[in-house]
């Protein structure tokens, strides 16, 4: 499958990125003790003085065969362990925000499309556009300001209980909802004009069934693609939200890694996130195949014919 070259390519890309980053890892590790001779010895031990291709090959071999993403410069423990311990937080954040966004977005999108040009439509469209245009960290800070500082309904940071999750997921969810809502609205608008909708109405179907069963089902296809792409955006946004709300997830880990020049950590995390994203896109494609009856029938015809 053409997934493999992309995965390999991403690994090369991420490694090259960290390779060109300024700062000598050996010198950083030694810190105050460093003299030119000791730096040289450490570089040789770490394999940093070998040619780029050799280093790249070694790294890729480690990643692919042993899932070994290297040792963190800062904590001297394997990067993969630290990533695994932080992964659940980020995944939970992403998926809950996604769920909120999708539910809100599709609901408002459908209502907007059905009652086009009404005041509901206008207001939700404006809100959706604001949701897309607002920087997520600012929205997060505004939520903190209003809900945590002034109204004292929710706590400001941490992630130790259900209450702590409300603000971060709402922040990310609103942004996702904006995009999903716009896509739903335009997709539904296109579908509603179709002839089969008119037929359904002529048959005497209730409006509810017409909208939900016929229109929405057919409008879902581009929406699913957008949802897939949104996950990638949400993962990136999770970095910012984790920074604002101090949640112990991958986003914060990357930021700490960057600030401490902990290149293996950053490298490994970006790689893991990229892999997850690719797998999600793949899953979206597969779901696509099940949802769209045209693709499904093509698939069935192919397997039967072969």
């Amino acid at each position, binding site marked *: 499958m053409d997934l493999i070259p992309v995965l390999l390519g991403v690994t090369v890309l991420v490694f090259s*990125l960290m390779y060109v980053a300024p700062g000598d890892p050996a010198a950083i590790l030694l810190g105050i003790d460093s003299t030119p001779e000791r730096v040289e010895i450490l570089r040789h031990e770490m394999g940093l003085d070998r040619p780029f291709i050799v280093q790249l090959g070694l790294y890729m071999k480690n990643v692919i065969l042993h899932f070994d993403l290297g040792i963190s410069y800062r904590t001297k423990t394997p990067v993969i362990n630290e990533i695994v311990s932080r992964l659940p937080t980020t995944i939970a954040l992403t998926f809950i925000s996604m769920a909120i966004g999708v539910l809100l977005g599709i609901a408002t999108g459908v209502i907007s499309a059905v009652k086009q040009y009404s005041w509901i439509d206008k207001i939700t469209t404006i809100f959706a556009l604001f949701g897309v245009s607002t920087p997520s960290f600012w929205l997060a800070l505004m939520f903190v300001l209003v809900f945590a500082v002034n109204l004292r309904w929710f706590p400001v940071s941490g992630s130790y209980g259900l209450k702590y999750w409300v603000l971060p997921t709402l922040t990310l969810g609103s942004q996702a909802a904006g995009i999903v809502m716009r896509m739903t609205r335009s997709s539904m608008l296109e579908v509603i004009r179709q002839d089969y909708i008119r037929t359904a109405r002529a048959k005497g179907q209730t409006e509810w069934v017409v909208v939900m069963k016929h229109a929405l089902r057919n409008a879902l296809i581009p929406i699913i693609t957008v949802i897939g792409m949104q996950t990638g955006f949400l993962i990136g946004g999770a*970095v910012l939200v984790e920074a604002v709300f101090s949640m112990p997830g991958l986003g914060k880990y990357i930021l700490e890694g960057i600030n401490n020049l902990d290149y293996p950590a950053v490298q490994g995390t970006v790689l893991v996130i990229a892999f997850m994203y690719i797998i999600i896109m793949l899953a979206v494609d597969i779901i696509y195949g099940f949802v769209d009856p045209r693709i499904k029938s093509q698939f069935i015809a192919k397997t039967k014919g072969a």
Partner: protein
Amino acid sequence: MVGLYLLVFLILVAICAPIIAPYDYDDQNQEKAFKFPNREFWFGTDNFGRDILSRMIYGSRVSLQVGLISVGFSALVGCTLGVIAAFYRKCDNLVMRVVDGFASIPYLLLAIAIAAALGSGINNLMLAVGISTIPAYARVTRAAVLTVKETEYVEAARSIGTNNFRIIIRHIMPNSLAPIIIQATLGVGNAILIASCLSFLGLGIQPPSPEWGAMLSGGRIYIRDYWHMTVIPGVALMLVVYALNILGDGLRDALDPRLK
């Protein structure tokens, strides 16, 4: 049209910055620090006593500069790649695989990684934002060029012996411009957002240079008591990106052939 007016207003503000800004963005005045918006300082002052209004005005310059230049760079590289991929079908697979490789990392993450690798500073910021948004332009251009390539006038040009380069420049590019323009308009807003995110994280523009995201980050610790330091840059960011999005949407509605 609202988007267009807002944008023009913003550009004018940015260009006339030295004339209209009441104070220099660097003017520190410790006794007047932490003031809320009042008659002397229309937007109030920040923790160093600098006038926020002036910093906002100078910041608009920075944001616009970053937005326009990074989109320009991105569009240039992306469109070239797209044209090459679509026109020379043999390289299509290779080029698009490389682009897909870049695209499989969420663009915010990619921008963060590139900015971290290159270091801080406005030039590196523009480069980071530019590189992370290349895939969109490549894909859009490739799709547009693929469509235009099959039209009859291109076939006619080819049959009278026009060389490839001329065909691309004179026939294919002008007719594929519409989606690229739409992408670019929306892209400027996006670029400004990414740039402010990076500066918020400390990766882009460093203080004392005024940039709205950095101002937000700087004001964050004082949010409990002096919320104006964070609210004002954020509102500005929101309005600018909103204006650009409205403009882009309007352009898309006007130029989309399906709605004609």
